[in-house]
């Protein structure tokens, strides 16, 4: 018995060594970038491999704020990501409710069409979507970054699957008490679905916060650039100053990192759900 216990300890020891080695490979780039953001330009060039800066400085952060309107970029990212996330929660709840709870002609057909659209990659339709937005004179506006994403097939699908699991009796009881469909959705179904709504919200927010392709295509003006696009342009226009670039990268990454650490469970759940859709 004791020998078995020892061999298990050894086995777990080896596992930990392997896993930690892998984890270091994954995290190291972040650490190195992060530490570079606190180094003076001279040290970045003369001593790039030190993980701990010899002289700790905030000059790179100061420079980022003075050389580009990063506060504005940050605000734009918040505006765009929040608008997309909130409107998806609203529109997807409604359509998911219809597909899960209401009877209407062509319901299944319409639902399958919705599912089929999930197979169309964004990259394939970027040209016609640009043309459509241009037709409505929306290029270079917040609307161009937000409108194409105010609802989604994925969100509808995710919420519908959850709404289906809520027992029918609950609905009947609510209607007996004189509740309307909208009242039932808002007062009963949505509070019940808080975890899945959180998953959808976090996923949508992360996706739009990190989105680079879309702002790149539909905006030109510097005032409405989002963080990701703004940073990418900063590198192209301003030449490479690694300390400043890493400071900008840190600013762009921290919000998502915090959200992720708070809501890890929803993240993992969301991936599991997207990954194992039947």
């Amino acid at each position, binding site marked *: 018995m004791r020998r078995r216990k020892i061999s298990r300890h050894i086995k777990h020891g080896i596992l930990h060594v392997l896993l930690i080695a892998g984890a270091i490979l994954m995290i190291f780039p972040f650490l190195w970038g992060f530490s570079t953001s606190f180094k003076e330009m001279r040290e970045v060039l003369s001593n790039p*491999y030190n993980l701990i800066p010899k002289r700790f400085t905030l000059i790179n952060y100061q420079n980022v704020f003075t050389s580009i309107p990063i506060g504005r970029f940050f605000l734009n990212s918040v505006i765009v990501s929040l608008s997309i996330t909130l409107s998806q929660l609203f529109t997807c709840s409604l359509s998911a409710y219809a597909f899960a709870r209401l*009877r209407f002609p062509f319901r299944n057909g319409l639902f399958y069409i919705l599912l089929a659209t999930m197979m169309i990659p964004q990259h394939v339709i970027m040209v016609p979507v640009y043309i459509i937005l241009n037709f409505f004179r929306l290029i270079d506006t917040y609307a161009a970054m937000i409108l194409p994403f105010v609802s989604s097939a994925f969100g509808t699908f995710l919420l519908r699957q959850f709404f289906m699991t809520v027992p029918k009796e609950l609905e009947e009881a609510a209607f007996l008490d004189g509740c309307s469909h909208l009242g039932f959705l808002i007062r009963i179904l949505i509070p019940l679905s808080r975890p899945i709504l959180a998953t959808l919200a976090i996923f949508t927010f992360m996706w739009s916060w*990190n989105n680079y392709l879309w702002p790149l*295509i539909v905006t030109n003006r510097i005032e409405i650039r989002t963080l990701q696009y703004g940073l990418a342009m900063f590198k192209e226009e301003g030449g490479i100053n690694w300390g400043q670039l890493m400071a900008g990268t840190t600013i762009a990454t921290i919000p998502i990192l915090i959200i992720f650490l708070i809501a890890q469970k929803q993240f993992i759940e969301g991936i599991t759900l997207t990954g194992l859709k039947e």
Partner: protein
Amino acid sequence: MRDTKRAILFILPTYLVITIFIILPIFFALYISFNKWNLLAPMKFIGLSNYGKLFRSEEFWKALINTVYYTFITVPLCVIFALVIALLLNTRIKGIAFYRVAYFMPVMTSFVASAFIWQWIFQSQNGILNFVFGLIGLKPLSWLNEPKGVFTVLFESFGVHIPRWLGGPSVTLVAIGIMSIWKNVGYYMIIFLAGLQNIPRSYYEAAEMDGAGPVRRFFSITLPILSPTTFFVLIMAVIVSFQVFEQVAVTTQGGPLNSSLVLVYFVYQKAFKFLEVGYASSAAYILFAIVLFLTYLQVKVIGKRVHY
């Protein structure tokens, strides 16, 4: 039937968005691809000419081949690493939460941020990768600015010259691939982990009682039951890698000498830099056909339940 009106109202916002920004565009793209159009002058119908031009274009073939190369670099390694990490994590080991966060961090970092960090790592001078190369006695590479094939470079270091067509993907494309593996492995790991946790413990206990060792248990239980998940991940990874864009757009813009030009970047360049909208759309449709075929495979085989 009372429900119909309400249902229409409820699905209207979603259907408006889907129709205007997905369904309409996918047909519109097909139509544009039969036209010569620069967004300013009127469209001119030219039938299949854009597709003909595409197949005669050396640049398009280069983009297609690079995309396939990129798929071969990233997908197998990414899927194998993801599976191995998931297997290691599925051993009721302590600290699983920490490891999960560590492996997942790159997934939620934006492409722009991760591309910056990796450009810093890949730098030819002062880059840490070349520093490590120096330590183990290898020649430094200009990772993101080397159009030569990896095999060419490898054999050259032994003084052997090989023909160009044997050179393989460019060093630059491989570097972008390494970055992508780092970024995506955590995502597939989570999916594998979910698949692994669905396997009942009792299967393993029964096998252990029958005297099956860990290797045997892996090949007789884990792998067969996990096969639908593996297949799903595999196809998804291929679909994702065919759409690679951001990594290239932020780091190399397809260069040097088109050695990291990929399909989506080709489409982007033709449409938004040269305003050859029709031509770009025809390339986009080729990509769509490839993705559609892969999705069809996925649905069909998953539908058949691989492990029975």
